[in-house]
């Protein structure tokens, strides 16, 4: 009973002290403000707001369109990168689309185009007549590997197709040079010499069909 009375008295004396002491009032207000601010900081420290969008494609089936047995022997590979651009002039300024295309042109022979007796054995000599060197596949651009470079204005799918054709023609014109065909021919001779020697033939003669 005495203790209860004592604590009541001490609270009363504290309140009366606060009421008369302005320094104590300021200190209490400051402590309360710090507690409130700390609480608000804790509640809001992880606050965030953002606008998001899905950048991934859906998972869709991949179909096999065709399967073919081929016999294409490649002797020269030309890897090309083509920076291709298109510009549209208008009254308010020029629009521009620039892309980097990647392609690999493969030069060699098609074994399905050989003659019936393209390999002949004559004693210790083997003779091979190879079909002419050509571009093994007309589809040589890996369009899905294309990299964007710059885009201003609005471009249609038709414009993108035209840009692909421009890159295709440029790559083909540059890579199908006579020099590259000669290189492929020389390498074909070296490689067939090596293979036929490995088969145990001492003398090998290689020539190309005209």
């Amino acid at each position, binding site marked *: 009973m005495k203790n209860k009375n004592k604590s009541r008295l001490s609270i009363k004396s504290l309140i009366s002290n606060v009421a008369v002491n302005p320094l104590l009032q300021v200190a209490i207000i400051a402590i309360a403000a710090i507690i409130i601010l700390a609480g608000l900081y804790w509640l809001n420290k992880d606050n965030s*707001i953002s606008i998001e969008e899905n950048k991934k494609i859906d998972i869709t089936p991949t179909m096999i369109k065709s399967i073919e047995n081929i016999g294409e022997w490649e002797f020269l590979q030309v890897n090309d990168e083509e920076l291709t651009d298109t510009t549209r002039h208008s009254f308010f300024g020029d629009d521009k689309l620039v892309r980097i295309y990647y392609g690999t042109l493969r030069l060699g022979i098609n074994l399905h185009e050989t003659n019936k007796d393209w390999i002949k054995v004559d004693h210790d000599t083997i003779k091979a007549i190879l079909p002419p060197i050509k571009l093994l596949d007309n589809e040589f651009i890996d369009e899905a590997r294309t990299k964007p470079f710059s885009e201003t204005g609005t471009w249609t799918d038709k414009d993108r197709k035209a840009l692909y054709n421009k890159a295709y023609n440029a790559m083909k014109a540059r890579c199908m040079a006579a020099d590259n065909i000669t290189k492929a021919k020389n390498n074909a001779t070296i490689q067939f010499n090596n293979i036929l020697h490995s088969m145990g033939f001492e003398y090998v003669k290689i020539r190309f069909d005209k």
Partner: protein
Amino acid sequence: MKHKATLIVIMAITLLASCNRNKTDETAKQIDTIPEIVMHIQKCSRLYTAEYKFHKIITHLDKKTIKASLFKTDMSFDIPMSQRKIAIPMDATVKAYIDFSNFSEKNITKFGNKIEVTLPDPRIIMTSSRIDHEGIKKDVSLVRSNFSDEELLSYEKQGRDQIIKSIPQTDILERAKMNAANNIIPMIKLMGYDEKDITISFRKGLNNNINNLIDKTTIEHEK
């Protein structure tokens, strides 16, 4: 006097304008003459024996979503009328080849009239891919911007990666080995061997590592 001054000013403006026009023409000419970046030529000896053509329709759908975290509570909601979708048809060619560049006597074993040729492991490569630009279908909400070139190419790249991931589900390796034999046996027959005396073999346990047999040029851009 006044007329003379006006005439001089008009002449000066005309002269300046003509100079500027020449400059613009030069800039326009420069735009269309961007040269190639790199051309890399490599000698090789690869026999391509199987060709698979793949077709895929890449689809993508996105909406703008507001994601917020307030007072330790996560919330998200879609912005109305913010939907865009696109379908991109795509074709890709994948081929399997045997690399003969290191072919030597070590690959050949002869006993009497019989010959056994051990061929190197077949490798798989994506040789081309093509987008059917005319077949692309898209639906863009009025409040959204059209698909940018960067976005389109990113979806096409992801479609390419999905095709590469589906390669192990095909029988391309088996077909490549069978067709390699179909190409090599007639050659050896022309050298004077009977068909029954010719054996074409590959190393054992090949099929377990199909992912390792995909040519690095096909997957190097997956990073």
